[in-house]
């Protein structure tokens, strides 16, 4: 059994402690622990967090291995401090059967960089017409609990209602990509002052908000829980806040890019800023940060969406939507939430590990840093300052909106069940 001693880290940003890992579990947490027989990781000044959990990742395998594979995606995840990622269902073929979700699950386990928990499609082929075999995916080796047609909205109110009801039988949750399709035909960017000037088709906030309003009411009516993907507008925050105040079982996520970037960047017509839902306004960004701080928004999820270079090296209208995010998420959260005083590191641990693991029912993840728990841990150096260079990414894709930006913080070590996947900032 291999032993690792993490010496002198601020656990969840609080007291300085030593953490002894023995095999796959945390053996002891305390001060002045003996280093005998253990590899020592000096963590002076660093923050120890529970391994991060991403409820919203696109790994692209099977089908688009030119942009990402389970291997490259989980290496990127480990680099970013993640020990578990939920892989979205919009692959080719779609993850709408037990066979596909088991394949993705198994690939994640075999590679060993980060646990992969597949998300199952709500409807067959993401077409919004017929429920996929949700029970079969849950009962498979992959044990799917989160279902989503992400990329597409489950816009039919009856299908959404039935899905919400059906997954109650096994504690599942539907994660909705809230986008009213008719209001967003030809949509290219946030509808507002900038789209009016640039002559790009508008994606109005109301197209998101109207679906969220409908779905929280549906969830209340049938007594189900519902999760809202990548919430992006100030209006959506108000609806979720209202729903929670009524006791509706709703959870919501925000992406790092919606916490930092605005639609002003689209003036460059550089498709690296093209994403769905689109970058919104400063007012929205500030509302999202506040909502993440006060718990209205439960978690940060990356919506890591790799695309090959040629799909972004073109005119705006022809470009694919999406940004990679696994390797920059924690830095963006540090900049937008920690350094602004909105959230402390314990709060970061909650929004990026405890809460997403709870929503997705991820076993062994999002656990306290205490003796007897699985050793899924992330060590962060918050004093680090670096300029983002996509050439350094472990992801197969480079479509980051942060190229050339200085971001704070760096993941120095990631441990998956006691095994170091990242050592001194490099993949092990």
């Amino acid at each position, binding site marked *: 059994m291999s032993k690792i001693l993490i010496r002198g880290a601020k656990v969840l940003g609080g007291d300085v402690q030593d953490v002894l890992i023995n095999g796959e579990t945390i053996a002891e947490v305390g001060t002045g622990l003996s280093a005998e027989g253990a590899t020592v990781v000096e963590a002076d000044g660093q923050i120890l967090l529970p391994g991060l959990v991403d409820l919203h990742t696109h790994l692209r395998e099977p089908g688009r291995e030119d942009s990402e594979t389970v291997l490259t995606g989980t290496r990127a995840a480990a680099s970013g401090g993640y020990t578990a990622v939920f892989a979205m269902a919009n692959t080719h073929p779609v993850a709408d059967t037990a066979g596909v979700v088991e394949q993705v699950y198994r690939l994640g386990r075999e590679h060993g960089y980060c646990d992969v928990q597949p998300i199952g499609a709500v409807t067959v082929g993401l077409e919004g017409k017929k429920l996929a075999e949700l029970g079969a995916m849950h009962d498979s080796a992959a044990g799917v609990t989160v279902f989503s047609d992400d990329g597409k909205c489950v816009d039919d109110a009856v299908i959404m209602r039935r899905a919400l009801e059906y997954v109650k039988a096994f504690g599942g949750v539907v994660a909705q990509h809230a986008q009213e399709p008719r209001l967003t035909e030809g949509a*290219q960017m946030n*509808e*507002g*002052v*900038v*789209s*009016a*000037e*640039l*002559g*790009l088709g*508008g994606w*109005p906030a109301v197209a998101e908000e109207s679906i969220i309003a409908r779905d929280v009411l549906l969830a209340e009516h049938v007594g189900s829980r519902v999760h809202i993907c990548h919430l992006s507008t100030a209006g959506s925050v108000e609806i979720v806040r209202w729903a929670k105040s009524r006791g509706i079982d709703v959870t919501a996520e925000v992406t790092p890019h919606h916490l930092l970037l605005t639609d002003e960047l689209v003036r*460059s*017509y*550089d498709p690296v800023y093209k994403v769905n839902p689109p970058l919104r306004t400063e007012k929205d960004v500030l509302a999202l940060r506040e909502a993440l701080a006060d718990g209205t928004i439960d978690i940060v999820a990356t919506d890591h969406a790799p695309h090959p270079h*040629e799909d972004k*090296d*073109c*005119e*705006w*209208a*022809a470009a694919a939507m999406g940004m990679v995010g696994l390797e920059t998420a924690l830095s963006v959260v540090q900049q937008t939430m920690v350094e602004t005083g909105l959230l402390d590191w314990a709060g970061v641990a909650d929004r990026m590990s405890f809460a997403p693991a709870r929503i997705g029912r991820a076993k062994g993840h999002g656990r306290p840093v205490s003796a007897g728990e699985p050793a899924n841990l992330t060590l962060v150096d918050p004093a680090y300052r670096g300029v983002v260079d996509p050439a350094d990414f472990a992801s197969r894709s480079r479509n980051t909106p942060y190229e050339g930006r200085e971001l704070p913080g760096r993941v120095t070590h990631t441990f998956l069940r006691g095994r170091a996947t990242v050592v001194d900032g490099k993949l092990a």
Partner: protein
Amino acid sequence: MMRHLISAADLTRDDAVQILDTAEEMARVADRPIKKLPTLRGRTVCNLFFEDSTRTRISFEAAEKRLSADVINFAAKGSSVSKGESLKDTAQTLEAMGVDAVVIRHSASGAPYRLATSGWIDAPVINAGDGTHQHPTQALLDAFTMRRRLVGRDAGLGQDLAGKRITLVGDVLHSRVARSNVDLLHTLGAEVTLVAPPTLVPVGVETWPCDISYDLDSVLPKSDAVMMLRVQRERMNAAFFPTEREYSRRYGLDGERMAKMPEHAIVMHPGPMVRGMEITAEVADSDRCTVVEQVANGVSIRMAVLYLLLGGNDSATPARTEENK
């Protein structure tokens, strides 16, 4: 003078007046028996048209030929683009053949900006209309036409359009002509009013330097020029307005409405006109309508832009060589 012409919003008042004044000089060439200047001899200009537009393409071609440039016309239909070639590869292919300037028309808003700023090519880029974004040479030829008619051909030299009241009517939402004109006319000191049904005005228009009205009749008596924008019939299928007849009744310009305009006021249209929809034949064929002049002025304006961008300005050429090192 700038290196590219992408948006009317990029032009300063002095830039714009310089282009209009240069265009007046160019217009004199058209009055000569031999309508040609040697200015761009040995230079190659490519008209890169990803969207059908015969009139704009011909106008640029006429301007290029009058300046003695070698002209290459590239239309996307039937070309490698229809086989899936990217904008980047198409542009680089053309540049490799030694093109000195690219005139681009594209259905995607921002495509000319991308071409000019992404480092794909070095040649100056002139936007000949991109999506629903900009059409700067159209705005310049419109301003040129207004200055001639409302200020005077000789009296207008060196002048802008300060205090002139200009009204644009029609599908503002889908119009690059409207966007370009609002930007340029504002820069030139004119007071602009947009008139349209609320469905055809973009959300976010409140920051534009102009007024918005839904009532054409109330605006007409206060207009020195009224520009009718083309309205596509298909828009009614997407519920932008109920029927062609209702649109025409509320926002079309007929003889009766034209009579409400001040006597000196002109009627403009960027073409192609949809007669019976936004404009009646009576108005289109009247003396007040400048549609045909606008076409002629378009050639002069495009000559001026090519001249100033490619070689007219003495300091421009060495600066460009410097950059290419």
